[in-house]
Every structure is written in structure tokens, then in C-alpha cells.
């Protein structure tokens, strides 16, 4: 079914998408998910954090492959973000990787297409970033064929008091980022 027809005729809560639909629609500039999709939207149903975690890696692999096929990776970096629970101070200890899903916030993991070369420094009050070995996260080596183009890092930061966020809380995230060479 043509994407526009499907979008017009399918109720919003039935619009669980596939990676191919998303990437193709994004390429055409017609995606209503725009540049990011939460994992639950790909799965079409609510799941446990552990399920989200394990499903994330094959989904990221599929996004990488489809995006490479249509040339999106020349213009975009691909990110998989795991949103972790807030901390009350700058948390420089690494999250417990083996059961990372226990540390997830209420926000499901998210896949994003990030336009290049958007990498300017954001103004934060405090920030900590530290790399994580991809093999620690992707223990089944699903992303192994792309590992030379992938970096993973943990970040904890406190934003300036803007965008309606609580300036006293520290956000924590783990990001897996793919950049084509």
C-alpha cells in the first residue's frame, strides 16, 4: 500500500511501522514519525524493558542496512538511545550493563536519524560522557559487521533551566551511534 494512502486510512494507534516503511518514507519526506521512532512503535505493542532492549539491536541493524541502501547514511548518522532513570547528582559511575533494562526510564528506547554534521556543543551546566565497549551492550554481536562505524557512550548531564526541564535533575542516557565512513 502506498505510504500516503496507508497513513490516511489507518488509525493512528494501528500505525506500527516497519523499518523499511520508516526509512523509505523519511527518504521521501513523508514520514509522520519524522526523524525518530520509539522501539514500541516498531513493535506495535507495549512490552517489557528487557524485550525493548533485546529488540533494539536487530532493529538498529535493519535501519543501518536500509538507510545504507537508499543513501541516507551519507546525510544522517543513526542513533539508538537508551533512556535511563534520572540521578540526583552527576553520576560518573557506569550503568550496570548486564541488566541495563532495569535502569530504563519510562521512555522506550528510540532510533533517530541525525542530520550531519550536527555536532555542535550544547550548553549544559554539567556533563559527563564516557565510551562503552559495543561488545558489552551487544553481547550477541548483532551489530558486529558494522562495529568499525559504531560508537557507544554513556552520558549524564544537567541542562540549563530551559525547555521546561527540571534543572535540579540529571539526565542519563546510553547512545549507540552509527556513522558511515
Amino acid at each position, binding site marked *: 500500500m502506498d505510504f500516503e494512502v496507508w497513513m490516511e486510512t489507518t488509525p493512528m494507534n494501528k500505525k506500527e511501522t516497519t523499518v523499511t516503511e520508516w526509512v523509505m518514507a523519511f527518504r521521501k519526506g513523508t514520514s509522520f514519525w519524522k526523524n*525518530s521512532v520509539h522501539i514500541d512503535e516498531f513493535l506495535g505493542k507495549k512490552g517489557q524493558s528487557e524485550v525493548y532492549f533485546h529488540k533494539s539491536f536487530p532493529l538498529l541493524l535493519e535501519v543501518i542496512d536500509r538507510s545504507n541502501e537508499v543513501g541516507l547514511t551519507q546525510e544522517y548518522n543513526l542513533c539508538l538511545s537508551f533512556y535511563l532513570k534520572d540521578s540526583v547528582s*552527576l553520576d560518573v559511575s557506569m550503568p550496570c550493563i548486564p541488566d541495563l533494562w532495569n535502569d530504563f526510564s519510562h521512555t522506550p528506547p528510540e532510533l533517530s536519524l541525525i542530520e550531519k554534521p550536527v555536532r555542535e556543543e550544547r550548553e549544559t551546566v554539567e556533563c559527563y*560522557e564516557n565510551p562503552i565497549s559495543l561488545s558489552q551492550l551487544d553481547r550477541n554481536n548483532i551489530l558486529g559487521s558494522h562495529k568499525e562505524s559504531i560508537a557507544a557512550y554513556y552520558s549524564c*548531564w544537567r541542562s540549563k533551566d530551559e525547555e521546561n526541564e527540571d534543572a535540579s535533575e540529571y539526565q542519563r542516557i546510553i547512545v549507540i551511534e552509527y556513522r558511515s565512513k
Partner: protein
Amino acid sequence: MEGHHNYFAYDYLVHNCNVAASGTASAFATSALGLSAFTPPGALAAGAVFLGSSVGYEYIANSYPAQAIYNWAFNKSQGEGDSAASGEGVNPKSSNQMQKEVERGQAPKTIERVDKGVDRPGLTEKPHIHLDDGSAINNDGTWKHGGRALTEAEKQWILKSGWKLPQ
């Protein structure tokens, strides 16, 4: 550190910088608005002291944001009606506060969750609300995903939270 991590210059980055926090105003005064008597919503409850006269009014607010009082007063003086109609002048709630309301059942049932914004180099998202039909709306009133007519309950909750409605 594995070799491929060196691909990104920012990979190993630890930095701290201190930025002076701007808190709520300790005092707010206006005498040039030429308003009839009014009391900004919440101002007195927040500890403001009302020192009005028929010409000028002065508020000494201990914790109520001066900008919110100013916005409300400005809208009134411009004849734009109550600020609740636009969401302006309402102290915006954080996504965390709104999510807690969702979890406590204090938000409309059609609100699924409220996600925080992300403000990292190269990865930026606005705080946003996920609706139960899959749509998601940013705090500035733009649609993150999809888009549909909001229910009256959704509109009121969004405005009460100080966020903006879609145009």
C-alpha cells in the same frame, strides 16, 4: 578503550562548567500598566504581598516567577483575555512533573506518557507528550509524530501545564 572508539573525537569527554542559575524573582514591581485591580492567579498564595493603589500596583513575590506575573498582567493590559487561553503566563511544568500526573491518574486518560527533552551534541529532542493513538506533541506545540484534533480535556491539561497547543 577499543580502537574504533577513536573514530569520534567526543568519545572520551569529561567536562564541568558552572553556570549561575537564574532563580525566581525575589521582587517584581510594576506601576505603569494602568490596570484596574487584579490579582495574578497564585501570586498571593505564593507569598506575594499585594500593595495596590488605584494607579499602580506593586508585588513582592517570594517565589512566584516574575515573568509569569508580568505575562499575565501584560495580557490583561492588552485585552487579550485570561492567559489560560494561550498557556502563556502559566509557569511551565517539567516533563517529569507531568509524567507524575500521568502516573497518578491526574492527566486525561488519552495521555500515554510525557518524555523528557534531550539536549546532547547532535541529539536534540523537545520535551513531548505521547497520546494514546500514537501521536506525540512537543512542548512548543509542534507535532513530533502524527497529529490530530486534541480533546478539550487534553487542551486544558496542556494549557494548565504551561505548554503550547498546536496552531
